[in-house]
């Protein structure tokens, strides 16, 4: 809501306040000021003048050379308006002035003659939509008059952010009332004049009004004005509308807009002679009925909408917008005025259904005063008579099927103090409410001071005691209010086990060199194609789509963290950063059929920790040239499980199956599931290069993701006790074996078998080698087997027996021993 300070000053004195002071008064009582604009800034030096000489330009047929006298000075000015004559009063904008559209006037020379300014049209002053010629001022305008001050263009316009509960503030008078309260009544609000002369013709003879749907049309008041002269509005009226961000159209339409802004009550004007018969029927639309709106949009109704009709045809979509057919035109002579009140819920549904917005709808959906219809109507009639010389019919038609009584709300002083936490004198509380337009009456009470407060009809937001407490608090202000810290009596405190566990996971990854990311849960469905997912892939089928996404790039919820990581790795790679380790804890989302009702979708959220890496293992260590590889990735996974204290004997990492959803993006040759006691809780592996390439990454990417809740579950379930290391001090014996392992042979279960031999404490891999000296198709793997007894020094015989069993296993698996 834009409010002009000059306009506001007509109802409540504000011209003595600086813009800053006024802003403060508004914002500290709950009306934030988004901006303060000065629409006519730069026009301070525009003055009136008289043309003392008008001659054709010697070198240009289209131009006139004028001398304009502005009292003390004379200027030469060029114009293309060939209607200019000597003696014409004009407005002269000297060089340096700024026009309404922001254009600055420069000194120009055209065909040898310099123009020292410009003769302005109303369009250039922002007071007319489109001007065809230079403004011809009235003869009474004295040369040298600075219209910036004369026409109230030295204005400031406040963009007020009015909260959704305060429709009363969507008006100049409503905002003025706020200032009355904030100033503690020191500034008083004045009502505008509403008097007019009535004609002899009773309104009822000119038009018949009936309301068929009183559930959605609370009240309908009407007058008819006749002998209307439709034409341009006077300058003061245009000025107010322009300052408020509206375009002047014609005097009748401008007055309806003026009253809407002034009093906050939307009104409508119909051309009475364009109705099929002189009547108004307010009713629900019929299914399939249509209406062409003023904005040339054609609506087809489904029957819920409320229409203003002439009994036969729809005239307007009630409370939203008028129809094209009955609109005011230049030939309009008789105007039917409507000041109605509609059900906000119905208006809102209609606005949403058709995706419409209008100044009227904006106010009606928030709730418009049902008590001021007659006053608004009188104000309309007053202005129409003043401006267009119209005659006004006799007597207001007021259809008000269920007159509403003013709400009464009981207010206890003790409740005010309890909720606000500070006390106020009773008189101050009463004054605040009165200055807001409420009726205040003391009432007897056993609970101390109490009032019965009569709520004006323009305040639909106030229904309960607490709403009045809010009013008292906000008008009093919270600047001087004390601060206290409440004693927290809640017994349950702190973080939950899973919340603590999350911090542990984060600390683990941070310590392991992974940087934490924070990516959008919304991804591009195109990414599924970049991942080469077949049409039936579960990620595609389970993906949850937004109904109205902001753009395709963020239109579905991620079923895996992979696309986000690829985007982020790609961003790094394309910015020449190729050594990257990232991790993130975030939710994945899947849609599934409900087990009980397959046609109903269930939405599932699954918290995962994802991790991805590429490039050097230790980029800031010049002595380490290793690139990350599958074993670096697996090392991270194993260390994670170790830190979460899941015993390694419960963990298996089988290669992913071909039909695993991840097998479309990871090479099964280098990818595995993480299984704890047979339950798959995660996956990790090497990304297919085609997929990386689709994200413009020309490097090998490793990725994994693990279910956080399941990891937590197993961590709690299997958590080993911290073992004492006392008693392991008997000396260990160590034996290394270098093995020649053929490609395709998996060592996991072999190592497992060896480590289960009694007397074997640990089996370590100390070297994995392929290349020179090793036959093609083979890998040299060196094991170190540590033998130890917990209760005695292991003997030579025991060692030999153990090693024999190791050899037995290796023989059984037909693994050749190179050394050992």
């Amino acid at each position, binding site marked *: 809501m834009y409010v002009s300070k000059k306009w506001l000053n007509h109802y409540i004195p504000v011209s003595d306040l600086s813009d800053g002071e006024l802003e403060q008064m508004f914002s500290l009582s*709950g009306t934030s000021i988004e901006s303060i604009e000065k629409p006519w800034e730069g026009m301070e030096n525009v003055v009136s003048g008289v043309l003392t000489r008008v001659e054709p330009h010697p070198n240009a047929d289209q131009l006139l050379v004028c001398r304009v006298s502005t009292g003390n000075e004379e200027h030469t000015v060029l114009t293309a308006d060939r209607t200019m004559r000597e003696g014409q009063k004009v407005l002269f904008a000297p060089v340096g002035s700024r026009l309404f559209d922001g254009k600055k006037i420069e000194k120009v020379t055209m065909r040898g003659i310099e123009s020292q300014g410009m003769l302005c049209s109303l369009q250039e002053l922002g007071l007319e939509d489109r001007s065809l010629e230079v403004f011809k001022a009235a003869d009474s305008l004295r040369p040298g008059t600075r219209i910036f001050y004369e026409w109230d263009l030295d204005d400031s316009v406040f963009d007020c952010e009015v909260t959704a509960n*305060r429709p009363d503030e969507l008006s100049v008078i409503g905002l003025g009332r706020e200032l009355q309260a904030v100033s503690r009544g020191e500034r008083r609000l004045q009502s505008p004049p509403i008097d007019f002369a009535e004609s002899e013709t009773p309104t009822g003879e000119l038009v018949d009004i009936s309301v068929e749907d009183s559930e959605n049309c609370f009240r309908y008041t009407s007058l008819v004005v006749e002998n209307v002269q439709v034409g341009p509005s006077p300058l003061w009226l245009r000025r107010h509308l322009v300052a408020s961000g509206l375009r002047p159209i014609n005097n009748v339409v401008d007055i309806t807009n003026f009253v809407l802004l002034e009093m906050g009550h939307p009104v409508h004007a119909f051309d009475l002679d364009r109705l099929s018969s002189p009547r108004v029927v307010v009713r629900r639309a019929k299914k399939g009925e249509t209406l062409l709106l003023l904005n040339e949009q054609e609506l087809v109704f489904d029957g819920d909408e409320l229409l203003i009709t002439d009994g036969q045809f729809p005239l307007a979509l009630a409370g939203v917008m008028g129809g094209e057919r009955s609109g005011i035109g230049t030939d309009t002579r008789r105007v039917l005025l409507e000041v109605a009140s509609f059900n906000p819920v119905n208006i809102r549904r209609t606005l949403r259904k058709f995706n419409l917005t209008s100044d009227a709808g904006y106010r009606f959906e928030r709730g418009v005063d049902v008590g001021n219809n007659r006053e608004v109507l009188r104000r309309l009639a007053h202005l129409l008579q003043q401006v267009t010389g119209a005659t006004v019919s006799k007597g207001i038609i007021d259809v008000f099927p269920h007159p509403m009584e003013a709400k009464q709300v009981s207010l206890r002083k003790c409740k005010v103090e309890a909720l*606000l936490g500070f006390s106020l004198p009773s008189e101050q509380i009463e004054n605040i409410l009165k200055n807001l337009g409420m009726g205040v009456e003391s009432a007897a009470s056993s609970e101390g001071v109490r009032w019965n407060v009569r709520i004006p009809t323009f305040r639909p937001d106030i229904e309960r005691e607490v709403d009045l407490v809010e009013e008292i608090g906000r008008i009093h202000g919270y600047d001087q209010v004390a601060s206290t810290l409440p004693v927290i009596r809640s017994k349950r405190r702190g973080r939950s086990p899973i919340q603590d566990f999350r911090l542990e996971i984060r600390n683990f990854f941070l310590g392991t060199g992974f940087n934490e990311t924070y990516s959008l849960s919304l991804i591009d469905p195109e990414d599924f194609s970049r991942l080469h997912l077949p049409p039936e892939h579960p990620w595609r089928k389970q993906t949850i789509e937004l109904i109205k996404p902001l753009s395709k790039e963020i239109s579905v919820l991620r079923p895996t963290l992979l696309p986000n990581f690829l985007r982020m790795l790609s961003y790094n790679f394309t910015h020449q950063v190729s050594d990257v380790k990232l991790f993130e804890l975030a939710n994945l989302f899947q849609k599934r059929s409900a087990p009980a009702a397959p046609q109903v979708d269930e939405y599932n959220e699954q918290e995962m920790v994802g991790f991805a890496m590429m490039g050097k293992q230790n980029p800031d260590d010049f002595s380490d040239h290793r690139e990350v590889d599958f074993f670096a990735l697996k090392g991270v996974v194993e260390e994670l499980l170790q830190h979460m204290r899941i015993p390694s004997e419960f963990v298996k990492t089988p290669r992913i199956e071909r039909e695993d959803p991840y097998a479309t993006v990871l090479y099964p040759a280098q990818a595995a599931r993480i299984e704890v006691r047979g339950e798959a809780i995660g996956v990790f592996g090497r990304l297919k290069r085609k997929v990386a390439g689709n994200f413009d990454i020309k490097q090998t990417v490793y990725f994994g993701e693990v279910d956080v809740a399941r990891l937590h579950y197993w961590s709690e379930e299997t958590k080993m006790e911290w073992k004492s290391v006392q008693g392991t001090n008997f000396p260990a014996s160590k034996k290394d074996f270098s093995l020649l392992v053929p490609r395709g042979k998996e060592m996991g279960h072999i190592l497992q078998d060896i480590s289960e031999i009694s007397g074997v404490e640990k089996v370590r891999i100390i070297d994995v080698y392929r290349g020179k000296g090793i036959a093609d198709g083979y890998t040299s793997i060196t094991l170190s087997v540590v033998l130890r007894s917990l209760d005695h020094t292991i003997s030579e015989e025991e060692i030999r027996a153990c090693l024999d069993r190791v050899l037995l296993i290796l023989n059984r698996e037909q693994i050749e021993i190179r050394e050992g």
Partner: protein
Amino acid sequence: MEYQVLMEQMDSFALQARQELEKAQEVAELERLRVQFLGKKGVLTTRFLKQLGKIPAEQRPIVGEKANQVKQEIQELLESAKEQLACREEERYEESLWEDTTLPGARTRVGFEHLVKKTQRQMEDIFLSLGYRVMEGPEIEHVFYNFEALNTPEWHPARDEHDSFYIEPDQFLLRTHTSPVQIRTMEKEAPPLAIVAPGKVYRSDYDATHLPMFSQFEGLVVDEGISVTDLKGTLEHFVLQMFGSKKTIRLRPSFFPFTEPSFEVDVSWEDRNGQVGWLEVLGAGMVDPNVFKAVGYDPEKWSGFAFGMGIDRITALKYGLTDIRDLVRGDIRFLRQE
């Protein structure tokens, strides 16, 4: 053997020993000289001590004393030469160790906590130390929790301000705020309550200052006699802990359907030119009685305050971020501030 001759020979032996010891460059050389001079078959023994019998008895003590003096002198010389050599050797060793200390270190990278997550953790800790509990709720939310139970019925214009992402019309949406967690908590538990609820929320907005997904931080305290001054004091405490002791706050009346009275809370902020102004940082208010009714609390008995703020916004303010989209790009140069 003349007594005199013996004494002179000892002097020249001492002189020779001194000269040779001075020339020695290595510890091994010193050891060889010690054996040569002082060993069982060394010069001192064979040339002098064994000659002692050949001189008159009354002169023997004098010669013996002389021999002792020479021995002691050589021993001292040996010791000091040894020390000097060890010193020189250490110097040479140290020289061999020389590294250019101005070269960069061989670093092992430790990951960086994401700024938003770090801020969230710090915010949680501020309230945890006051005795609050951290609660959570789903990101896909039912309209009942996101709007209806929060006193925002279907026709309420306040729903427009949320620019919601729906996934099922009029049923499920991505939550537009963390306030549903208030309802979910109060439905399950009786007062008194003190919780904070951090989490991701979604609104249809994407530019340099808005992400379509961001993190919000909700707070709720319900007890008997909770008032606006408690809210003000709590938020003041938070702001001082988060932004430092020079900050002040102001409560600007505003409107939220689920609180009454409602506030926008501004924090004093110094701009680049040192001008102090106000920055809107969070929304807050006293829990609306209708919200209490929706969860079965008696609004006559209980009162409470609630607040909500954007963790991303707090992060942007704290670290002076100019483009909020930096937070979600995963650019390692930003994450690590390289």
